């Protein structure tokens, strides 16, 4: 039973403990992880910064301090080399909200009724573009002013205010308007990590020999366009829109999905995968 949820439990543990460390820093003065997901300080010495926030600030015309540059580079390096888009499913607290909405969606069988998705998966890249234009025009990091993600983690640490309205609107948007609407279509932070994690090493891999085409993975995947190869070809998931949440691995009864480390020395499989992806 627990095997079916092992990654989900691990993800909730990391998400919640990261937030607990932040809250502890504010409330009880812990020195382990200070700040919030926009910018933080690990163990009083390692700076960490949200690369998308730093980019907006740079475009807005701010002088970017060394701490922010180093912090953003550390975060970029981590996700570019290892994690891919793991931020979204392993760190971001909004993931809990949207996962809940998606779970309810399945339980209420909304997916059977609302099949057509009225929004493009590329909306997030448009949002990145617009945010940068507005940041440059208004001289202030534009998404940071409206970010419901920042309102959520900041709210949990420093007090919510009307931030609960932002969380609720994401919840209902995902539940009734668009399946995986926020995380899978709109959020530019996820978009940024998709771009950063393009070539990262940790990947889910599919074995089509073992697959019985039950489609459970597709149903549960928040970015199911990345699973185009299911029951067709044995390929790794190379699209960086995969958040490495590993739900597909858990729900698979045939062991047809598993984590694997991308092998850049043996180029064949990844190249083939990329060609297939672009032709899809």
């Amino acid at each position, binding site marked *: 039973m627990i095997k079916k949820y092992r990654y989900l439990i691990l993800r909730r543990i990391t998400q919640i403990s990261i937030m607990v460390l932040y809250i502890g*820093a*504010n409330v009880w*003065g812990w020195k382990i992880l*200070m*700040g*919030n997901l*926009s*910018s*933080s*300080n690990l163990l009083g010495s390692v*700076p960490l*910064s*949200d690369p998308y*926030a*730093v980019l907006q*600030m740079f475009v*807005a*015309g*701010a*002088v*970017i*301090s060394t*701490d*922010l540059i180093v*912090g953003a580079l550390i975060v970029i390096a981590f996700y570019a080399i290892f994690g891919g888009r793991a931020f979204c499913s392993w760190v971001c607290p909004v993931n809990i909200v949207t996962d809940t909405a998606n779970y309810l969606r399945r339980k209420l069988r909304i997916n059977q009724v609302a099949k057509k998705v009225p929004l*493009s998966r590329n909306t997030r890249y*448009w949002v990145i*573009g*617009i*945010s940068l*234009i*507005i940041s440059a*025009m*208004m*001289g*202030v*990091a*534009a998404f*940071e*002013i*409206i970010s419901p993600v*920042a*309102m959520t983690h*900041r*709210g949990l*640490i*420093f*007090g*919510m*205010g*009307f*931030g609960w*309205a*932002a969380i609720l609107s994401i919840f209902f948007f995902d539940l009734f308007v668009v399946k995986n609407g926020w995380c899978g279509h709109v959020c530019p932070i996820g978009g940024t990590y998709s771009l950063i994690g393009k070539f990262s090493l940790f990947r889910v891999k599919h074995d089509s020999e073992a697959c019985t085409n039950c489609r459970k993975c597709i149903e549960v995947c928040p970015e199911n366009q990345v699973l185009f190869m299911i029951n067709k070809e044995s390929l790794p998931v190379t699209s960086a829109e995969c958040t490495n949440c590993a739900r597909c691995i858990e729900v698979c009864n045939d062991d047809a999905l598993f984590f694997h480390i991308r092998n850049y020395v043996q180029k064949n499989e990844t190249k083939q995968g990329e060609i297939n992806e672009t032709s899809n």
Partner: protein
Amino acid sequence: MKEESQDRRKFILSMARGVGIAAFGGMIWSAYVDEATANRLVLRPPGALKEDEFLKTCIKCGMCAEACPFDTLIISKPGDNVAVGTPYFVPRDIPCYMCTDIPCVPVCPSGALDEKSVTTNGELDINIADMGLAIVDTKNCIAFWGIQCDACYRACPLLDKAIYLEYDKNDRTGKHAFLKPIVNPDYCTGCGLCEHACVTKKPAIMVRPRELVMGEVGTHYVKGWDKKDETRLEDAKEIHTVTERSKRDALDNLNDMGGLLDD
């Protein structure tokens, strides 16, 4: 061939739709950003850059508020009418107690709180901070009524410098003195301890951002009694403006009845 051109039309149309939606959304978004950053009445932590630069540079991590031992600094929540996520303080609730080690400033990763602006001779110096400036509502300050109250004066960490008392004769009683609190903008840091201490229902001494409450003389007035100010005149050149009217003598202008009388 035909299908290809159909595809191209579809692609162009979908891009145009994207641009249309983006323009519409962008307009609402930028209008909101404009409004959300419009509040100029907020008081920022010590060392904060000028408001425009501060809004650009603050990454909204909240570490300054975490470092503040008095819980003075608040991280703006949605609904506070302060650019969301930025630090500010309300001195009537909790003023800045002007810690000598200024814990809120060095923790700032972005430089929105500028360590240099609160440093003299390589050491942190809270006394040169500029969070705002205290102003006195002389109409509602009871000291200006003649009632003895020096609450703000005694609360001031830079007593006798940032706030001093001006003694004046109370003509109403004929035998008492006014002890009027006067703020010296050269020393006031805007910590707000005076506003916090003020005894009136709504404070009669209050801190506001400096740019909002200070005027500016401009360069055309010179303090003739100030040797240093007087030096500005050394390189001054005479500027003589000639207009249509100034060509004539002033008296001629006065005597000219042209246009005033009927023929």
